């Protein structure tokens, strides 16, 4: 009989080790899945510093300026557009002409060099988002951008992940806004409804891949 190798408690240790092993393996899969859903990964709620301390609270709430006054191309174009320096100067040649806060704006205006703003809402290059069509269907800006009027510095509130986009695009009532394609469809049987929806260009094209990826 060989002398015993291990003390009696080694079995316990061994089992514990096995448990840890499996737990570790599982966490390798689960932890990343959780991580990608955190704001840290989606870069939500990060107050980026901008070359000009532009305060939306003041302009939107105090002065009651419409979003579209500055982001004027949002109605016509895929891009909402950041206003040209000239738009800023439109007002600030009259008010706050001397404000040091606006030094950068004035320099840009007179030197002809653009102000280099930091992008806050960043979609990957292969995602084609079009502002105009969303606005045309009565989407309020807040629905994606949050209540910018209460932000000192604009931060991204929505996760901008694909499933977040799909939440709306799959909900054909929300998706088509005021078109109300599903009126009187509800009265018929669900089967009819789905057939109708499945055959409706306006609805089905909201979830096909090339709606956003081209």
């Amino acid at each position, binding site marked *: 009989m060989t002398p015993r190798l291990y003390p009696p408690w080694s079995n316990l240790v061994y089992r514990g080790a096995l448990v840890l092993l499996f737990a570790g393996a599982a966490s390798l*899969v689960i932890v990343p899945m959780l991580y990608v859903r955190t704001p840290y990964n989606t870069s939500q709620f990060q107050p980026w510093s901008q070359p000009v301390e532009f305060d939306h609270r003041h302009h939107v709430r105090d002065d009651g300026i419409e979003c579209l006054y500055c982001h004027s191309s949002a109605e016509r174009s895929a891009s909402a557009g950041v206003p040209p320096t000239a738009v800023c100067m439109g007002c600030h040649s009259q008010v706050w002409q001397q404000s040091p806060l606006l030094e950068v704006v004035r320099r840009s205006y007179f030197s002809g060099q653009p102000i280099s703003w930091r992008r806050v809402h960043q979609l990957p290059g292969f995602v084609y988002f079009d502002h105009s069509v969303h606005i045309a269907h009565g989407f309020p800006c807040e629905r994606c951008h949050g209540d910018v009027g209460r932000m000192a510095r604009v931060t991204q509130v929505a996760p901008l992940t694909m499933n977040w986009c799909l939440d709306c695009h799959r909900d054909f009532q929300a998706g088509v806004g005021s078109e109300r394609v599903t009126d009187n469809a509800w009265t018929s049987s669900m089967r009819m409804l789905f057939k109708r929806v499945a055959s409706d260009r306006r609805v089905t094209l909201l979830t096909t891949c090339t709606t956003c990826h081209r």
Partner: protein
Amino acid sequence: MSEPLLIGRPSDAALGDELLGTTWRAGGAGWKIAFAITGALTALLFALITYTVVKGIGVWGTNIPVGWAFAIINFVWWIGIGHAGTFISAILYLFEQGWRTSINRFSEAMTLCAVLQAAIFPVLHLGRPWFAYWLFPYPSVMEVWPQTKSALPWDAAAVSTYFTVSLLFWYLGLLPDLASLRDSAPTRRRRVIYGLLALGWNGKAVTWRHYKAVYLVLAGLAAPLVLSVHSVVSSDFAIALVPGWHSTIFPPYFVAGAIFSGFAMVITLVIPVRRVFGLHHVITRKHLENCAKLILVTGWIVAYGYMIEWFLDWYSGDRAEMYQAFVARPFGPNKIVFYLSMICNVGVPQIFWWTRARTSVWVLWIASLLINVGMWSERMMIIVQSLQREYLPSQWGDYSPTWVDIGILIGTIGFFALLFLAFLRLLPFISLSEMREMAHELVKHDRRTPAHGERHDG
């Protein structure tokens, strides 16, 4: 029984010394050289893998129309080789084939090494390997899942399952021998290590009972995998409409081919091992002969597969299919692989009709090598030659491998050999416990029928 399964009736102790000794005995210069060579080839393999991932798979010879080539050929080839192990250890076990005993562990190890090689390719051949995990179903924020209609996610599932089960099965079988290693280890360090691996095995009867039960269950689990894995692999091709792929015969024909090549590889490996360790009385001619017989049988199934394909190509009346089978393969680019697979897979096995061939070590060994080559060529014939000549002549294109392709193939062979050599050195490659069991049974058997007793020693 013309040839015995065990020559002589060694005692437990004798068997133990002999079979565990392979682990304790120090290796000579030959071993060092072998390890050096295979190690170098392994390094080459990983260097080329890095190169491919950094530069892109454009460094291979693949193109449009030949989108798959060496990577997939190697994958199918290695997976096929991987089949013999589980076939021997699981299916033959369920059929209570005594002769599996002395070669099952060995071929299981071969299986694991082979599947490891195979597992490289499904990931490496991707354009963007870093996204390979998209093949597995998991809840992503894209809310997109793998497509179950495609064969590839099933591939990933099948191969990983197969590897896992084979590993467990092999390790379970190892437990008693790990215990014996622990108990017979010369140094304390080895005792500790093997002790850890033995999971505190104590040879109690109850342990043995549980052990047997679990072994049987795992065997039952492993057996269907032998059939499923290569069926799934074959559907990578069978579900496509490429002339030469689009065929329902593929699953059985691939499984047969897999076992065919697997046994060939077993013979290729067992003959030198048996010579090096002088185990002629444990791995007898009987084992080799049985393998040869299986090769002959599966070889015929493969041949039948070829014939059915030709028949269907003709019967379909489809010009593309007929051109593929009767013009492109025998006369088209890379036609060499067509003739190689015909000669090696259909011609060579026929010599096993003769007992002398089945029992002659040299004939067996050379034949098995040829069959390995033949099966690789067959995969190249199916994959590359089919893609070279598809429906639109305007898009016919030829294929030739680059040095990277060839280097990776050689590299995997080296890596395979390295792992296998390590296994030979570190673990008993013949199941000691099962050999002892068999020895005892034979002794009992001899007592019951002394008349036969003499012949066993013949």
